[in-house]
């Protein structure tokens, strides 16, 4: 149902006429989302259209908008940078306002204490750039530096390739400001008691366990308007001397840094190497990155990508070049690591430790990818994560399957099934055939190691209906495959859930192994969201579905 003139006029009064719209074409700019085609009727690329898009400029404006939503029974769906189908309205039956937070983009850095305070539209690239100038750095989430820091910290776990060293944002959250769905402003941790951003858990209210959703805005309640995150020490240069040209810029490697692509002879050795890296506490950034292009094609792909004169159609010829077939075999079980020393002696020690680990597990440094050109590219790509959109490079469509997180020994257990599944599903040519293993993931999502995962990168053409349907089928197959080997469904299940009916979702949650969690969350929701204006994907079970 369209928003009433009365409600619309009230919105205009709050944020100004130029910052609110209900124009159908403008609304479609918010309804269109990546992954929508995989869950929407008729493979539509559009999620439900919001009834209005609103751009508040302050916490007070957000609060006024949320209170208005309560008055007029409108759902509120905020987004930072607005990526993924769950950033859009989800349910056709609900009248939803889209809050585009881009006007709230201020940030400050407490240089002495290593704390950054950010509003929703500050992205990781901005925070990272400002932090390193001051001798600090920040974790950048796996989705890349184009994403909102606040969304990652408050509405998501905030994991990324550097989480191994500096932790995810969720661990580093030092306080946040939250407009609840009922329109109350909650300030958490020490910030909430007026003691500044010292501790996310207090003195003052800690809502760590209840306010966070799953991925990005999926499942968060209300609107996060400001937060503080702890920064980590940056032991490198404080300028940013990027060289080269688009797309393959490079970052020279400091003398106290090392950048390697390492390869293993088996998945057992891969898991052993991970454990030993954890145990020896080396590694600054640790990620299986380049394999996103698929084990059959990745080595040739990156050689193409780092040459600005080449394009995708050159990949077959590169594969035929002398040595590339051997390189492809050499790199099948590879990953990337950046070591950072606090001194020359420190980095030399780390280097020696890494060499010892490689000797123990039978691994090696991939010589071609450790040469200056590739190493400098890797250095930049992993430190800034400005190329994460290469997920989509093959055909414009990508979906992630698997990605169940756990210790390396557990993760390696699903690799054969995940690889065979992609190979099987791509056999008829409706998905990109890049090798069964197109799996990518962080060395560890948690500081100190112990928790890794591998996400299968499945590429399909969203402009091709048959290919899109093959993508959907692959997701369904991946769930079946996972269950068949005793693993829980992976990331694909979270994607698909966006297209399910309320009834199905509530029944699924009611059937979960620990439904109590969802019941507890309902009680919390009843308190902060009595009029149900919050995100539909907030994980709770209505009373009538309680098992």
């Amino acid at each position: 149902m369209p928003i009433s003139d009365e409600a619309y006029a009230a919105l205009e009064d709050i944020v100004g006429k130029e910052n609110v719209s209900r124009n159908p074409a403008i609304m479609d700019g918010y309804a269109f989302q990546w992954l929508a085609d995989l869950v929407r009727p008729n493979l539509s690329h559009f999620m439900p259209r919001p009834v209005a898009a609103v751009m508040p400029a302050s916490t007070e404006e957000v609060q006024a908008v949320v209170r208005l939503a309560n008055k007029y029974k409108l759902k509120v769906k905020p987004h930072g940078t607005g990526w993924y189908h769950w950033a859009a309205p989800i349910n056709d039956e609900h009248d939803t306002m889209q809050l585009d937070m881009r006007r709230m983009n201020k940030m400050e850095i407490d240089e002495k204490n290593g704390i950054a305070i950010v509003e929703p539209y500050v992205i990781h690239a901005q925070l990272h750039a400002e932090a390193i100038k001051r001798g600090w750095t920040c974790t950048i989430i796996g989705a890349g530096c184009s994403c909102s820091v606040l969304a990652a910290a408050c509405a998501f776990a905030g994991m990324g390739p550097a989480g191994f060293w500096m932790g995810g944002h969720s661990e580093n959250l030092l306080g946040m400001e939250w407009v609840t769905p009922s329109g109350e402003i909650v300030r958490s941790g020490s910030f909430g008691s007026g003691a500044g951003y010292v501790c996310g858990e207090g003195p003052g209210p800690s809502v760590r366990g209840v306010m966070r959703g799953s991925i990005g805005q999926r499942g968060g309640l209300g609107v996060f308007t400001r937060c503080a995150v702890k920064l980590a020490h940056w032991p490198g240069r404080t300028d940013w001397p990027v060289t080269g040209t688009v797309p393959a810029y490079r970052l020279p490697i400091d003398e106290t840094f090392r950048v390697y692509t390492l390869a293993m002879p088996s998945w057992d050795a891969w898991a052993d190497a991970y454990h030993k890296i954890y145990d020896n506490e080396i590694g600054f950034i640790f990620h299986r990155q380049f394999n996103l292009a698929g084990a059959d094609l990745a080595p040739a792909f990156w050689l193409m990508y780092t040459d600005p004169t080449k394009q995708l159609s050159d990949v077959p010829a590169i594969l035929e070049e002398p040595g590339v077939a051997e390189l492809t075999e050499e790199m099948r079980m590879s990953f990337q690591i950046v070591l950072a020393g606090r001194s020359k002696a420190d980095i030399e020690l780390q280097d020696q430790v890494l060499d010892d680990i490689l000797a123990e597990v039978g691994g090696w440094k991939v010589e071609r990818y450790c040469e200056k050109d590739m190493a400098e590219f890797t250095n930049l790509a992993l430190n800034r994560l400005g190329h994460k959109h290469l997920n989509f490079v093959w055909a414009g469509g990508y979906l992630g399957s698997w990605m169940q997180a756990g210790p390396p020994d557990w993760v390696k257990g699903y690799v054969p099934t995940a690889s065979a599944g992609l190979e099987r599903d791509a056999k008829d040519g409706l998905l990109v055939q890049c090798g069964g293993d197109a799996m990518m993931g962080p060395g560890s999502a948690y500081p100190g190691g112990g928790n890794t995962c591998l996400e299968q990168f499945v590429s399909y053409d969203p402009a091709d209906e048959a290919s899109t349907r093959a993508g959907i089928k692959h997701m369904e197959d991946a769930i079946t495959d996972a269950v068949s080997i005793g693993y829980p469904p992976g990331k694909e299940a979270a994607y698909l859930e966006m297209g399910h009916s309320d009834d199905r979702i509530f029944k699924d949650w009611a059937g979960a192994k620990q439904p109590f969690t969802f019941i507890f969350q309902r009680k919390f929701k009843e308190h902060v969201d009595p009029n149900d204006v919050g995100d539909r994907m907030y994980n709770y079970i209505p009373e009538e579905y309680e098992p």
Partner: protein
Amino acid sequence: MALEDFKADALRCTRCSYCKWIPFDLVKSHQFAKGCPSVDYNHFHSYSAGGRLVTMLSLMQGRSEVDDTVVDVAFKCQLCGNCDVACKVCRYDMEPLAALREFRRTLNEQGRVPEVYPKLIGNLREAGNFAGLPQADKATWADGLGLKRLGAGAKAPVLFHAGCRFSFDPTLRSAVRAAANVFTKAGVDFSIDPDEACCAGKAYDMGYRDDFTTAAAANLENWATAGITTIVTPCATCYSTFKRLYPDAAGPGADTPVPEILHTTQLADRLLKDGSLKPSKRVPLSVTYHDPCHLGRQGEDYEAWNGKEVKIYGQAVVYDPPRPRYIGANGVYDAPRDVLRAIPGVELVEMERSREGAWCCGAGGNVREAYPEFNAWTAGKRVEEAKSTGAEALVTACSGCEKNFAEAVATGGIDLEVLDVLELLERSL
């Protein structure tokens, strides 16, 4: 081309929003990370390249209709091409800038254009230039310089094409006269055309394709008749139009091929490097250089292509033959900088957003004429960035940029000299 030709681009857009920023690897601060003036000023996602693709898709799928807001979305954009560069950091199957131009052409064919457009195109049709000024005054900028003038039947291999804005706008006169003086001093044998016609690049961007094609054909014909082999222009827009758009208009194997196109900074750079120009006077000035979009990102060489999309490895999208890939990094970036470095006493300091990551001056895409406030805001942002370098002068190589920056500096009461590269070079000779 038609809107439908960009449907796959729209369907393959993933709303990643890279198009709103400069390439992330180049980001050096919170303040100067943005790349798209349009979405930064207008805010709604539809005002980004990705958002415009969605709007196009919405229209194609009949989900929405053209209204005043859609017209605003399509035309309130400088077509600066930052989105194109940023998108291509990760994509080989998208052409955002070409899509935005096609969007405009489609709306124009439906008669849906900004209010000022009919007047502008009327000026071109009637007066021969967008300003609507008498063509008879076109060469008055050169009065007193003693330059050769192309006459009926005369042959001249090098033609100095001043461009309409440099020709008519008295506030830009010193720049264009400086360029002519520099080449005269270097002994370059060149002429000007007292009947110089508009390049019509603005018509292309406004979506008046027939007007553009007609103008291009006439210019090419005139140049061929006059025996022109090289065009030198101080105007970045003319440069990009001749270099990138005319070859397509002329078509492959044309009877009237496009002559060699040089920007004045390129010719000056050549003359410095071959010793024809020897700057000797010291010009003690700290300067920052602004890359005009039409000289940089849109100054790359044109490559003809007539091919089709094919798939390899099942669904990977490639083109047969390979499609030219304009990444924006191969435009004219070094020549103006080399000229500046050759001037004794000049210290060049770079802005954070430079080369393919440069922020637009605001004037492009006819925004200066159609959306003056947005134009001024965009220019003001760039002047702010220039000022942050500590430079005493903002130097550039485009009439639109120079005009915009001069106005922004004056409006803001900012202590920053605005100069053309060749103006500065002339001071050193």
